[in-house]
């Protein structure tokens, strides 16, 4: 199985980071993977995305034309990537930030009020990790426990005090999937 994931939204939402955690989890599990950021004059508030491929087979191109997993954290990203989503794919939407629903009927949409949930947890910048937790819990592209381990490797020493909160955020994403 190959999971071709695009995570898209505004710069500053931690999209590259959540992609990195997913990639790191795949590394720990010995899977094949690639991680590719959009790079350019991106900045806080500008558009930003990253492409993560997790596969049992060697990854050819790291560029994803038609993702089967999509995580969107703003409306322009949904507008841009919804048409590209593979038929049968799954889109995870931060419904606190994206007011509209998916228009296609051949894909699965999961609406999570991630930003609202993050604020309630007193961790407003961790909506990305809630969504990541939901993706992994719903699709099983990597094991949930591996994501927790990957987080420990990925969070820099400078921000080590944020580890607990990050772990809680991915757990919240998992719990949301379990109860909805």
């Amino acid at each position, binding site marked *: 199985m190959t999971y071709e994931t695009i995570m898209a939204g505004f710069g500053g939402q931690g999209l590259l980071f959540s992609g990195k955690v997913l990639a790191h989890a795949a590394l720990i599990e010995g899977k094949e993977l690639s991680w*590719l950021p959009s790079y350019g004059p991106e900045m806080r508030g500008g558009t930003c995305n990253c492409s993560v491929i997790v596969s049992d087979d060697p990854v050819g191109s790291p560029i994803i034309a038609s993702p089967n997993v999509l995580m969107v954290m703003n409306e322009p990203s949904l507008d841009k990537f919804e048409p590209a989503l593979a038929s049968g794919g799954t889109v995870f939407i931060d419904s606190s930030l994206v007011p509209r629903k998916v228009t296609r009927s051949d894909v699965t949409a999961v609406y999570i009020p991630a930003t609202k949930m993050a604020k309630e947890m007193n961790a407003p910048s961790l909506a990305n990790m809630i969504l990541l937790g939901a993706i992994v819990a719903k699709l099983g592209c990597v094991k949930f426990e591996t994501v927790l381990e990957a987080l420990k490797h990925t969070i820099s020493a400078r921000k080590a005090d944020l580890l607990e909160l990050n772990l809680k955020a991915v757990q919240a994403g998992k719990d949301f999937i379990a109860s909805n």
Partner: protein
Amino acid sequence: MAQKVLMKGNEAIAEAAIRAGCRHYFGYPITPQTEIAAYMAKRMPKIGGTFLQAESEIAAINMVYGCASTGYRAMTSSSSPGISLKAEGISYLAGADLPALIVNIQRGGPGLGGIQPSQSDYFFMTRGPGHGDFHVIVLAPASVQEMADMTRLAFDLSEKYRMPAMLLADGTMGQMMEPVELPEEEISPEDARKNKPWATCGTEMKRPHNIVNSLYLKPDELEKTNIERFERYARLEAEECRWEEYMMDDAEFCVVSCGITARVSKNAILEARKRGVKVGMIRPITLYPFPAKAFAKAAEKVKAFLTVELNMGQMKEDVELAIRCSKPISTCNRVGGMIPSADQVTAAIMNLK
């Protein structure tokens, strides 16, 4: 076996250079290669090395010249417009027969162009980036693992043939992360400096002093250095060509591509094979020396070639030369920072006759 780590291509180059005994990095920031400089800035001071952000690309390449003269492994990195600035210094390095590593993570041009991936410096790099009659070794990695492996290879070949070596990749390769296994065995900077009888490292009053120079005012002497240099190039061309053949055993059509477009082409080849087309790929790993033999051999059995590049068809000319124009060559090119999709390459393959 060493543990695999997750790194950006740019970071893998930097770490591999350090493990190859390089302790001297001189550079100037430019997207999309700045992670190399950032990594060096973080690591070099901790291991007794030198990270120096010069006042310009020209200053940086001339610092490389000075450092390489002493026998130490020295490097610089930049992206296309910055490499144009370094061209003068690269020519001087070649003229003084100095080994050094230059990394070019290409972006779209000409001029300031853009900052998205490109392979449009192909001619500029493979023909000799600067004035005068010379070449540099050009290696084209297509994975983060190769970024690391070829960094060490570039230093080794550069010293073996006493000429600058270049890692030539595109913005995608520099920015992407993949698992990479770094060499466990580290070369010490002093070991890397050994066996360089030409280096200006102090005579200790035991030998005549060495001179590192590219100025020869007597034409007969200058001619001699040029001819001697081209004898080395001939040896390099005979012994160091590297390429990868992918699904070529039964291939009737041959895709030619390097770097990120070779990755895209692999996807396209798998798709075209599903549709019944016997297609393979030759991926040149050394762009100079160009693996002409591999293409001459392939031309005996394939019906046509397809070059896939992020330029208007530069490598195509090397393939035409290699096969003496004996078979038709089609192109699938995107430029300006655009990258062909696998579907686009598949369509180009399906059009081959």
